[in-house]
């Protein structure tokens, strides 16, 4: 079993990248590897309560539901949140200190910045 970490760090509303990163993360669980998703820098906006449907984008509800169901760890970088004044995180993600983010990345077998 490998530890795979996916890092989401883009602004969510002008790209499908973040949604695709989450879809990929779901796929990566299929061989019983341990998948962790980290929301870092502007990527933290993807882990907040937003209404993308107002600009005709699909919400990421399903991606988050399935990732939680598959017991993927979803971490949000507190420092990135503080810099942006973000507090309205989704229920199934966990805000952690930068040290924890660094530890997760360094202990991973595979790191995929998406």
């Amino acid at each position, binding site marked *: 079993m490998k530890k795979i970490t996916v890092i989401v760090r883009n602004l969510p509303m002008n790209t499908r990248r973040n949604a695709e990163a989450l*879809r990929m993360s*779901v*796929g990566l*669980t*299929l061989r019983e590897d341990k998948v962790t998703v980290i929301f870092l820098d502007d990527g933290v906006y993807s882990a907040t309560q937003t209404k993308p449907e107002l600009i005709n984008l699909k919400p990421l509800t*399903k991606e988050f539901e*399935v990732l939680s169901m*598959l017991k993927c760890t979803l971490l949000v970088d507190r420092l990135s949140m503080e810099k942006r004044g973000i507090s309205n995180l989704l229920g199934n993600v966990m805000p952690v200190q930068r040290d924890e983010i660094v530890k997760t990345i360094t202990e991973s077998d595979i790191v995929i910045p998406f």
Partner: protein
Amino acid sequence: MAVELDLKGEVCPYTFVKTKLKLEELESGEELCVTFDHAPAVENVPRSLKNEGHKIMGIEQKGEHLWIVRIRKA
């Protein structure tokens, strides 16, 4: 009587994830009939399931974008 699973409207990899989770509820040798309307899933889900050791009993096209895949759990 085979267990049925309707995955219309689902795309990859949710098609495989949900099929796999359903199979986990079944006993070895039981059959599962899954309905797909996502063409790539009809090619890929059976191939991936075979790789996981399950047996594909048949793939039936029911309409232009509708297929039923019959699986026997390993």
